């Protein structure tokens, strides 16, 4: 049964190929069904392989399948193939599962989009790359998947590329990811240099001969890669902008699967992290800080997808905190449960946006619970789950992380606990604004005040005049006269079925790894062959575990109550939505202010040579710094042939001077 592993990434790839060739001929909705079927087949295969692995004895649950010898450089032999072990199968199972549901949902969501087949083509390619990433048997395969998902992510963020904001968001994602990728590549070189291999098992077996400093360097470089992909401090701003993509994309790529690749990588290299505790320190601190910062920002956002985006950043921070501590099982556990409820939240948000005719501002929603019972109900479940209210899934997974954090450092625990309260609070705020209270969209439309006050990113405001926003033609045409005809309702079954399934998982997902008794920790026992040796043990008795569970529950309920009391009736509460948070700690702003503005001043100063276009696209400091040196350097290129010859002569003189210095020293 294990030999079917190669089929897992192959099915979506076949789907991709078929859609490339005949996507337009298949048309809408056949192309979508084909793509869904392919991912579904992949899911079934995964279950089969999973079962095969499960039958084996725990010590023998590792299987390497080599497809072909990919390339050989000197001592380095890289084969194309997969590694089937409990960790990769767990990931594959949830990736294919969630993907199938989101594919199904997308058939409904993208129904009226002109680029329908293209969307599914990208989605299938994405799933295939993601599976390559998690199943890859060596660093190179993982890196290929890593780049593949990055490219798909870019294409899907910029899917409605005729919107300038979408195109620029895609660009931003690409740039931030490239920084991280450089880290990944360097880490690979270093690993190869030190161990002579890139095959996971070989590398891990040879770690004993590698110096401690090298291990820290490898771990931190890989973590740099992970911060880019998983939107951690300081490389997180792209994820908020990535919400420009269609909502199913946000759910699949920017919440459930791709962004968790960094966490997966950390778990995969757990043997390295185990030997490099200093690197673990850094990871835990950055993870904790990201969790807290992300949660605070989410408290003051008004765009429904932005709230969820910052929530994702925060939850990913949580996972990194767990991985840094050494609690890999907790990290994976949180990743799984998070995938369920965050995908659910996004899909719910998608249904709301769909129903509200592409409105994303929560301040002009409200009162939708009665009109959209299924969406409202599942969203409520997701809120309680992510908030950590017992007995939903999030309670167990978050509790596990917090428990380990306490054992590692109480300060980290405090950070995590604060984040937990904030999480329950801001999603409560979101839920209240969207589903309860008055139906504000009626009056907002009547006054023509569609987008309310000071929005940080005007690009994200609902742009109903843009004909490329999908679903435009299904609803009534926009305009003050038409709001009366807006009838929000639950979407069709293809969209509600995934909601219900995910809600079910959000409720019962915690069952896979219950604390209190060793016989309940299924996930931990399952993952033990992979991460067992490196696992952190907080040394707490069952008694204190119960105490912590109670504290967690109290914290979660406190957050829920806070949200309920503050937002049940009100819409505007400036005092808890400080501009500081609304503008995301001014981090984007300061990137712009400190780096881009200075260069603008300099551009004015050297206006003869520098054009205003030079700072075009200078969205982040990295690019600006390079650019600035470019504008200075290009003045050397005067266009005078004599100057060029002078350059050659100068090079010659310096070269001879060096040679002379060597001869006479």
């Amino acid at each position: 049964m294990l030999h079917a592993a190669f089929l897992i990434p192959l099915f979506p790839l076949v789907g991709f190929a078929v859609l490339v060739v005949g996507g337009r001929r298949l048309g809408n909705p056949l192309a979508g069904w084909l793509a869904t079927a392919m991912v579904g087949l992949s899911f079934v295969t995964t279950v089969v392989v999973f079962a095969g692995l499960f039958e084996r004895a725990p010590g023998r649950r590792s299987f390497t399948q080599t497809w072909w010898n990919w390339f050989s450089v000197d001592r380095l032999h890289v084969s194309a193939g997969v590694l089937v072990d409990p960790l990769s199968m767990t990931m594959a199972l949830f990736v294919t599962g969630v993907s199938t549901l989101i594919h199904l949902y997308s058939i409904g969501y993208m129904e009226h989009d002109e680029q329908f087949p293209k969307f599914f083509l990208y989605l299938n390619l994405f799933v295939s790359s993601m599976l390559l990433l998690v199943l890859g048997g060596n660093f190179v395969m993982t890196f290929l998947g890593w780049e593949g998902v990055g490219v798909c992510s870019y294409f899907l963020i910029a899917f409605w590329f005729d919107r300038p904001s979408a195109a620029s968001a895609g660009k931003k994602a690409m740039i931030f990811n490239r920084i991280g990728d450089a880290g990944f590549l360097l880490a690979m070189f270093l690993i190869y240099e030190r161990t002579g291999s890139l095959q996971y098992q070989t590398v891990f077996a040879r770690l004993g001969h590698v110096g401690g400093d090298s291990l820290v360097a490898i771990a931190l470089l890989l973590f740099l890669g992970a911060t880019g992909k998983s939107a951690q401090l300081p490389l997180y701003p792209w994820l908020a902008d990535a919400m420009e993509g269609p909502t199913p994309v946000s759910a699949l790529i920017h919440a459930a699967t791709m962004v968790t690749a960094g966490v997966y990588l950390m778990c995969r290299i757990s043997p390295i992290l185990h030997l490099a505790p200093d690197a673990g320190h850094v990871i835990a601190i950055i993870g904790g800080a990201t969790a807290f910062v992300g949660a605070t920002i989410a408290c003051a956002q008004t765009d429904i997808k932005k709230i969820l985006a910052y929530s994702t950043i925060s939850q990913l921070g949580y996972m990194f905190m767990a991985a840094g501590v050494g609690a890999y099982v907790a990290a994976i556990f949180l990743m799984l449960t998070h995938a369920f409820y965050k995908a659910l939240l996004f899909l719910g948000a998608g249904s709301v946006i769909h129903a509200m005719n592409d409105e994303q501002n929560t301040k002009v929603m409200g009162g939708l619970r009665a009109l959209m019972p299924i969406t409202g109900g599942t969203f409520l479940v997701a809120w309680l789950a992510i908030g950590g209210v017992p007995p939903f899934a999030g309670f167990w997974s978050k509790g596990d992380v917090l428990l380990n954090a306490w054992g590692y450092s109480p300060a980290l625990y405090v950070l995590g606990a604060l984040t937990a309260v904030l999480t329950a609070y801001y999603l409560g705020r979101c839920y209240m604004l969207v589903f309860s209270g008055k139906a504000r969209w009626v009056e907002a439309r009547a006054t023509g005040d569609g987008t309310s006050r000071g929005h940080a990113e005007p690009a994200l405001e609902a742009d109903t005049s843009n004909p490329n926003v999908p679903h435009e033609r299904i609803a009534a045409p926009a305009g003050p006269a038409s709001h009366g005809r807006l009838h929000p309702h639950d979407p069709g079954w293809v969209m509600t079925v995934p909601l219900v399934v995910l809600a079910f998982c959000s409720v019962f997902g915690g069952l896979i790894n219950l604390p209190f008794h060793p016989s309940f920790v299924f996930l931990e026992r399952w993952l033990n062959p992979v991460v067992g040796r490196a696992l952190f043990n907080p040394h707490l008795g069952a008694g204190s575990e119960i105490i912590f569970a109670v504290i967690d529950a109290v914290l979660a309920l406190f957050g829920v109550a806070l949200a309920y009391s503050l937002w049940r009736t009100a819409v505007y509460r400036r005092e808890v939505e400080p501009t500081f948070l609304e503008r995301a700690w001014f981090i984007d702003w300061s990137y712009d202010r400190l780096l881009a503005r200075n260069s603008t001043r300099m551009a004015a100063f050297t206006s003869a040579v520098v054009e205003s276009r030079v700072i075009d696209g200078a969205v982040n400091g990295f690019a600006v710094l390079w650019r600035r040196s470019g504008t200075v350097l290009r003045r050397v290129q005067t266009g005078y042939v004599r100057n060029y010859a002078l350059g050659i002569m100068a090079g010659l003189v310096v070269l001879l001077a060096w040679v002379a210095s060597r001869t006479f020293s």
Partner: protein
Amino acid sequence: MTPHLLAATLPDGLTFAIAGVIALVGSLGVVLSRNPVHSALMLIMSLFGVAVLFVEQDAQFLAAVQVIVYAGAIVVLFLFVIMLLGVDRSEAIATEPMPAQRLMAVGLGILALVEIALLSRERWPLGAHSVAGKARGTGHSNVYVLGRSLFTTYLLPFEVTSALLVIAVIGAIVLARRPRTSAGPTEGEAAAAEAGGGPLVDAGELVGSGAPSAERRVEAEEALARAGDRIGEPVGEQEGLTVVRRPEQ
């Protein structure tokens, strides 16, 4: 002991000194002459000086080639081009639009010279002797030795120079050809262009020959605009303008 000029026999020393001074003065003259024609003549002088030094060092054949090919053909070609372009007027070399350039050039030149001299402080030639064959003491003349070497050891390079000459021919043809100004000219146009006279007439020919069309006129105007960048004597300019006006009459 350091080698000394006086160690040489008087005729050799004297020849070297005179020819060396001629070559140096010629070189400096090339750089310092205000008039390009003078530069070219100075180049000949320098080449002659070097040719004498060739003879002095038993390279009689190359000395002859140097005089015939270099001084006789290459520099004459230079002079032709100077005359063709009409740039035989003095250049104000006292003024330098980029003062830093001159300063740095001289500085770098001195540095380069010092470095080369430093690097080869010890006896200059170090290498293995007579690797490619003896130049002297073979009992044959210099021409014989060279010719023999060319047709044996250096046969391939010798043959390969033919490619170089082909390239020179093609290059000269391509570059000297009058540019065609529109895509796909008719035979008549091309012939007219070939027969054309002064440089600025090009712009007019486009309009003059063939059917005058709006597209052609635009192209001609563009060509004229380009020609405007390099307006020469006022006569040429007027000529160009009158030709362009023709189709409008």
